[in-house]
């Protein structure tokens, strides 16, 4: 460490960190380039317009959008409650809500499947709404995974809002709900947009929980990640590559939009 003191040390440290950044960036660029060059454009275009691909794209977009609406609608009050209240057992509740972020999605899908084999789960599945091996199951699996992400993102947004904005609005005649809608939500606008886009992108790419609960049936529960899995298992590499490229484009677009909206300030 002694040798790394002074200006020489600064340069060496800078070179080391920038080299790490360059190596990782290169790693991802190589992967993307290998995807784009693996197959010729004709095969890729044919794979893109194949009915199965179009079905997977449509189903993914629809289910991810429904999931995002549901996840944001529940995450707003939950994140606000955690951010603004102190209560006994708060850290336990907070940790519980984070579980889906750290647990394997397959395990969560399996847990949901187990739940639908209990009397209560069977009752819901048979008489209320069919989730197992069906499209609502895709939405439920995605929701279980991404709601934790939406809550985490929105909590950090609400945490960053100075509570005095709300306090001042109260002294200007707002009730607590009025202060929330007239002051807190407008202040959280950028965070809300970022959370919605990231939640949507994550839901679009969700595989583990979805395939376990909703199954992998072509033209039925075939989302983009499931279509990739089915293509690989049937050795249709051209279609798999086309589907991966679509996922990469969707995710990259989402991330670029978030950076544009929030000025690179979003926190995961």
């Amino acid at each position, binding site marked *: 460490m002694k040798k790394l003191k002074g200006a020489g040390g600064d340069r060496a440290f800078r070179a080391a960190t920038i080299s790490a950044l360059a190596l990782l960036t290169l790693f991802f660029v190589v992967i993307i380039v290998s995807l784009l060059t693996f197959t010729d454009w004709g095969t890729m275009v044919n794979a893109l317009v194949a009915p199965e691909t179009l079905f997977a794209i449509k189903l993914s977009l629809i289910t991810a959008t429904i999931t995002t609406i549901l996840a944001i609608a529940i995450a707003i009050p939950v994140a606000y409650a955690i951010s603004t209240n102190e209560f006994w057992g708060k850290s336990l509740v907070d940790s519980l809500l984070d579980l889906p972020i750290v647990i394997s999605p397959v395990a969560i899908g399996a847990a949901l499947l187990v739940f639908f084999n209990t009397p209560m789960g069977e009752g819901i599945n048979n008489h209320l709404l069919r989730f197992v091996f069906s499209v609502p199951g895709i939405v439920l699996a995605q929701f279980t995974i991404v709601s934790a992400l939406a809550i985490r993102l929105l909590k950090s947004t609400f945490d960053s809002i100075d509570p*005095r*904005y709300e306090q*001042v609005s*109260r*002294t*200007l*005649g707002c009730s607590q709900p*009025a202060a929330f809608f007239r002051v807190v939500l*407008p*202040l959280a606008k950028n965070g809300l947009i970022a959370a919605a886009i990231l939640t949507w992108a994550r839901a679009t790419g969700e595989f583990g929980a979805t395939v376990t609960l909703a199954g992998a049936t072509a033209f039925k529960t075939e989302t983009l990640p499931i279509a990739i899995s089915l293509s690989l298992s049937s050795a249709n590499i051209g279609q798999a590559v086309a589907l991966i490229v679509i996922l990469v484009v969707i995710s990259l677009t989402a991330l670029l939009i978030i950076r544009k909206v929030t000025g690179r300030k979003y926190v995961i």
Partner: protein
Amino acid sequence: MIEIKDLSFKIGDFTLRDLSVDIQDKEYFVILGPSGAGKTVFMECLAGLHRIKSGRIQLNGKDITRQAPEERGLSYVPQDYVLFPFLNVRDNILFGLKQKKLPYSVEQKCLNDLAVLLGISHLLERDPRTLSGGEKQRAALARALAPSPQILLLDEPLSSLDVQTSKYLRLELRRIHQEMGVTTIHITHNHVEAEELADRMAVMVRGSIEQVGQPQEIFFSPATPAVSDFVGSLNILECTACRQLVPGLMEVDCGGMLIILPHDEGAMQKIAISPRDVYVSDVLPPGPSVNRYKGKIAALDTSTTSAKIDVKVGNNMIRAEMPTELAHEMSLTIGKEVYIILKLRRLKVLGSQQSASPEAYHWYYQEII
């Protein structure tokens, strides 16, 4: 009238203890205290932002202790104004009025009247984040005044402004208070602000109200050692003779010290000056010799961050205060000869609130300085 009776509140390790004070209708009431005295917490309790454990707050005879902030009729301007960044100045001012659901014409008239009163008509379309400190303060005041509150709560409204703007806005606050007639509670740690603005004031130290009274009463007769420590004991000098230099400016003889000060009401018995307004120098300061005296340090206390220096000048003992660090830099010791200067504008004639006319100051600066 707002009556606060035995208000106690605990937040973390800090406690407000049995605060009782009555504030009259249309009064400009200042709460003066050092940082950490609990002034902001007290104001937040009044605004209803904390649930107080014991005590009572009554507004015009009605108990508002348990009322929600929006039901109290008190507007609050926090220290850094907290203008809503997603609204322009116009919509910030209209914020409270929108909650009242008034007719559009009434809203617009109120907006325009306030914008004219506060001199911000040209700023209405601006993003509040682009305003200067003084402009933000005016916009926040307009927003707080718009819903016609019964009480206006100002939390250190001038503390983040530069000296010139702060001085100008002190006058503006006085003018706005006179024109609007809204009972105002203003908290500050600045003695000058308190003295210039307050009809009456309270001194708050470590969560307790130590003294309530008119500024002159508090500055000239501190009731407790805590008040005396914070406001500082004034130097009070007996006058033996006086003569008028020009209308509005007098020269008085205080035990051999010839002092020039603004006054035109004839003879005077006593004059006072705060230790903070006595400058000490170990070398002859440049400029005219007006209100400048040579003396010897008789006592020196550097045990706190503010050094207290007693300088013997003729028959008078004058106390000065300066940052202890500066006293050490000047190597001040007991017995050392120093020069002191009494700040002309801060000299007060006891029993008189009069200040010199602009002509007197003009003469002073032209003829003497």
